[in-house]
């Protein structure tokens, strides 16, 4: 039996499936957070979620809208100062997976979340890199979630906010950066992984109903295909059900009017 699903749901489910039980995951807000919590509520009940706001091993009942929602603190094993998160936990080498988003990505998994155009006189000033530059180097590997289109998947970045494989062909490993870097990019069309020799991202899987050609056209560089391009298994009924429940709980919780004791 199959269920209907949206590309966003497929993307979240595909990202969630990359996580495993017991994995220590440093979670960005938005889709990474949805995916990590879906993993926790399905295949990986003992996954350890760390948010950069200092909430360790948190188990939110509803998704946070900000990286520092009270829900994260209420359900965490420990709530610690932010400098310790970055120094003791991330730089300390205790994170298995960093889960990132970005505005732009290049073929080597480098990310831009800083500016479009000249840095001093940008066309578009983006929010900036936040925790990502160090997540990308200290986590043992990183996963990236990003909707796929030619504006986001670009042949060259105007600004490199966060290191992927740098210029590829082993450049990252030679630079002394410790973590293994981007091992998967999950888009709303499919999944890319780095080629072992060149570090170049290549298509390894597509979502059901999406053609390889669609994906190539949504990529700003000539996208290479893996020897075999799989079809990602459709979301199960359980996955879709739990994800929609999570989003429904989240909407209900965030729709409450806030009253203040003043």
């Amino acid at each position: 039996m199959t269920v209907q699903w949206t590309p966003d749901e497929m993307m979240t489910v595909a990202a969630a499936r990359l996580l495993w039980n017991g994995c220590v995951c440093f979670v960005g807000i938005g889709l990474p957070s949805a995916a990590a919590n879906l993993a926790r509520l399905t295949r990986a009940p003992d996954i350890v979620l760390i948010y950069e706001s200092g909430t360790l091993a948190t188990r939110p009942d509803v998704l946070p809208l900000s990286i520092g929602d009270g829900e994260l603190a209420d359900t965490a094993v420990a709530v610690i100062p932010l400098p310790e998160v970055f120094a003791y936990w991330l730089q300390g080498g205790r994170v298995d997976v960093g889960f990132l988003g970005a505005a732009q990505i290049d073929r080597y998994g480098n990310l831009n979340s800083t500016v479009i155009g000249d840095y001093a006189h940008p066309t578009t000033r983006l929010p900036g890199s936040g925790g990502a530059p160090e997540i990308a180097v200290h986590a043992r590997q990183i996963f990236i979630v990003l909707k796929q289109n030619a504006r986001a998947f670009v042949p060259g970045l105007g600004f490199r906010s966060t290191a992927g494989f740098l210029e590829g062909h082993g450049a990252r490993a030679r630079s002394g950066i410790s973590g293994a870097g981007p091992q998967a990019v999950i888009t709303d069309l499919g999944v890319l992984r780095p080629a072992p020799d060149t570090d170049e991202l290549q298509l390894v899987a597509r979502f059901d109903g999406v053609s390889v050609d669609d994906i190539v056209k949504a990529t700003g560089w000539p996208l290479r295909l893996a020897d075999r391009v799989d079809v990602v298994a459709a979301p199960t009924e359980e996955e879709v059900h739990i994800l929609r429940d999570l989003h429904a709980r989240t909407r209900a919780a965030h729709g409450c009017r806030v009253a203040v004791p003043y």
Partner: protein
Amino acid sequence: MPLMTLQEAIAAHVKDGQTLALEGFTHLIPFAAGHEIIRQGRADLHLVRMTPDIIYDQMIGAGCARALTFSWGGNPGVGSLHRLRDAVEHEWPRPLRIVEHSHAGMAAAYTAGASNLPFGILRGYLGTDLPLVNPQVKSVTCPYTGEALATVPAIRPDVTIIHAQRADRSSNVLLRGILGVQKEAAMAAKHLIVTVEEVVESLDAPMNAVVLPGWTVHAVVCVPGGAYPSYAQGYYARDNAFYLAWDEVSRDRDRFRQWIDAHVLGVTDHAAFLRSVGVPSTRDAAGPGEVSA
């Protein structure tokens, strides 16, 4: 006893041209203090904050700032900070010099400031273009291993302002929940102003709670709801609807000015601000039992 009004505290401690940090990582953002700074017309400030959030969007749009040191400048969960973007992209209402770090770099810089060290070290900025646009990012060589490590200069604000849950009559301040870099920003500052939800006889802090002892605090101001539209753990939740609505308000310069005129410049204090934006008071609506921590 440094207990005073917010007007008095800002007038006494915040001067044009200073380096000023209002900290609070999504949680406990000192909105009331930021608004009072706008009302008092402070200018030429170098604002420092990991995540500028709406409060700095408002201060930048109102023309208070000449520079911004930061590491992530978005509207959390929503998108852009349009006033920040307008200042960077179009120099409106005035040019804004930016000093851009990563979160880890800002955390190391505040920690160095709190520790009275001239710089902090981290394994950071590797493979990024940030050092190309921020000449503050340098390096040192480890005297033991020969490795190069990134350095950031210490952040030592002239004034740090934070919001907390409670202070007692000796100005001891209790923070609980998500802590961000507030402790470090407080210790790094030359002057520290704390707004609190309430002043109590005894903090009743658990062992090892985060308490800033009174002699480090230059002014304590009781401002209930002072972190709204962000939140105060145990007192009130984040008003996500306000954050969403700000996206619309802040896109347009005129609409932004009208908002500031009506809700910040046009009111006398934070309670009036809360009333003006229609925030329900639990004190009006509910029995006393409902206002609980």
